[in-house]
């Protein structure tokens, strides 16, 4: 897949390079705002996407986008910009080709998602549930904004797609708190979880009133693989960081025993 990156500030291009280096199946060409060179390259090469800065001294990113689309009507345009722009600021003739607007400073998750979209691939969220609980999006550790929101997400994942009610979550995560305070803490954890998933651009939890459930599409987990019968090593540790996990660990240990006996 060939992409071009256009920015008049050379250091911004180097920064971009740091973010996308190592990305599979990606061939990239960098340009400063030299319109002739850019259009010349695009005429001779099948370019899938163009990452364009908006404000440049010699040409505007929007005008350049118009010309690139005239040359290749299927080219995807991604604006990388420091200024606030909305769809209404963009001419109608280029709106269909706009894939995304990424604001500087560039967030790796945003860029990654866009590159995956261009490649028509989906990112995978990997849940590590044997041992301590952690999540990885395309190999990068997910940072939760609070420990409790991470714990809440672990509980949602353990339920394996079933609904998690507020009452059940409170009974496990805040067993000793008085009722009103525990509801506040629950809603705080839900809000923070939603923020975290929005930041990594991977909205895999269905948030409905007083219930949460996991949408398992594009999620892998050692625990799910084990449950489906795959040959996964279970070291006897399951969500070590959480006391309530004992309830589910008992079930896991029973399954291990059962498989041992059937073998």
């Amino acid at each position, binding site marked *: 897949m060939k992409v071009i990156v256009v920015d008049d500030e050379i250091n911004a291009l180097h920064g971009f390079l740091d973010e996308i280096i190592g990305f599979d199946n990606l061939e990239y060409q960098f340009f400063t705002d030299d319109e002739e060179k850019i259009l010349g390259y695009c005429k001779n090469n099948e370019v899938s996407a163009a990452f364009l800065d908006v404000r440049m001294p010699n040409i505007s990113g929007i005008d350049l986008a118009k010309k690139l689309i005239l040359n290749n009507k299927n080219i995807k345009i991604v604006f990388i910009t420091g200024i606030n722009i909305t769809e209404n600021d963009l001419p109608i003739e280029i709106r269909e080709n706009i894939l995304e607007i990424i604001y500087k400073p560039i967030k790796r998750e945003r860029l990654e998602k866009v590159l995956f979209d261009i490649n028509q691939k989906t990112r995978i969220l990997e849940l590590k549930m044997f041992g301590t609980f952690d999540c990885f999006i395309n190999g990068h550790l997910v940072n939760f904004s609070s420990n409790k929101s991470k714990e809440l997400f672990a509980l949602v994942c353990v339920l394996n797609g079933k609904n998690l009610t507020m009452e059940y979550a409170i009974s496990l995560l805040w067993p000793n708190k008085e009722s009103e305070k525990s509801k506040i803490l629950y809603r705080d954890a839900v*809000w923070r979880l939603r923020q975290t998933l929005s930041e990594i651009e991977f909205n895999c939890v269905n948030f409905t009133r007083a219930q949460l459930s996991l949408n398992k599409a594009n999620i892998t987990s050692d625990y799910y693989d084990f449950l489906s019968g795959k040959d996964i090593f279970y070291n006897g540790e399951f969500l070590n960081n959480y006391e309530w996990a004992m309830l589910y660990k008992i079930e896991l240990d029973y399954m291990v025993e059962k498989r041992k006996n059937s073998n």
Partner: protein
Amino acid sequence: MKNKRLVRIILYVIIGLVLLSVPFVSMALFTHYGLMNDATYDVVVSVSFGAAAFIMLIITVLEFVSPFIVKDASFDTAIVALCILIQLICSNDIRWVISKTNSQIPENIYSLINIFSFIAFCVATIFLCKNFVRTYKVVLDKRETIASIIIAILCVVAYIPLRMYNIGSIPVGLAVILSIYWIIKLTYYIIRFNKIDWSFILTIFIFICMLGALMSEVPMNSRVFNASNKGIVSGMMIIAALFFFGIYLTFTIQTTQEAYKKEEYEKRLNTLQANVLKNQIDPHFLFNSLNIIKNIYKEDKQQGDRAIDLLSKHLRAYTAASNTYLVPLEQELENVSAYTEIENLKISKSFNILYDIDFEEFEVPPFSIQVFIENAFKYSRVNEIEDGYIVIKAYQEDGFNVIEVIDNGVGFDVNQIKNTSYGIKNSKERFKLLLDAECKISSKKDEGTKVVIKIPIKKG
């Protein structure tokens, strides 16, 4: 309820007809009892003629040049006023006025003038109907409307040749019947579906005056009026002019006041918005944040990246605020979250912020909630007490979208805040101006502080 309304409408009609007939009845009575002689009568007619012409001319000119009033409405009003003026000038009374100057209008010129009177009546009726349709949002049948306009145009065109054969009253009669049909149809629609207001009643009487003036062009039975029909047009037109002037005055004052209020409102909003942008990005905050980020990078690149993301999120809220008066609550809370995380990086004892968000599908002014959090950071000292917290709540209740900012800190004297905190005053005023929302701050020493913002939910 319906009966009361019907009684009210009938009462309006009776009062209006009585008012309309008063000048004519009184003049007829004065003449009959010899209280008014020809000379006095002449003076009354001249004054009526002159006054009506003057008022209509002023209204026409003012409406065409008015900068404030809605363009369409101004144009329609000007056309109607002009038509009434034309009807007045192109009437029997102008013959009488000119005869006083010892001049004479040739009969063929007078015929032409008569045609203008008829055209003026038709045009004025069309624009009166247009005004009703627009003001009361009447739904019309397109074919019926187009057919009526075509018939009106044909009547005007046919009047000229048919008048020569003394059957000009046929197209006039047809046009009169058509205009009465439309006025009654629209009146019925408006009475059925809308609240009747005074301007509607007065407009109906303007139409009656115009109709009366047109009908008086037909030769009158002198036994009925005991004289020629001199003065009837002037009389009707002065009444129309006074009604018109009444509507015009009310409408102008109202729209001017509204335009003035809107201008003042926008001026005040722009001032508040400019002050928010000036005060919210505190250089002290910015440089301290950059300094802390520099230090974080020395220890952990990933944490440094995260801190940069937080600061850029906060700065982006600033650029969003330059373009808009309101932002989604979700966006304001994201900004608050970024701000509080950055602040917590700078201190050894972090603030515990909880987001108790039950409903967030509404808008708030940008930086309007951050200012309350800033104050909680500055004064509550919740990070120094055991189990201290600041909680932000958002929910819907009893027709309001409610936001609360509550802390269990040291509390303060509420009266102090009125004199010192410009940020809070600014926030309260923007909530009031933009959303008609009330902000209440309550606080108790050693118990904490509570801010409650109630935003009425607008229907539709």
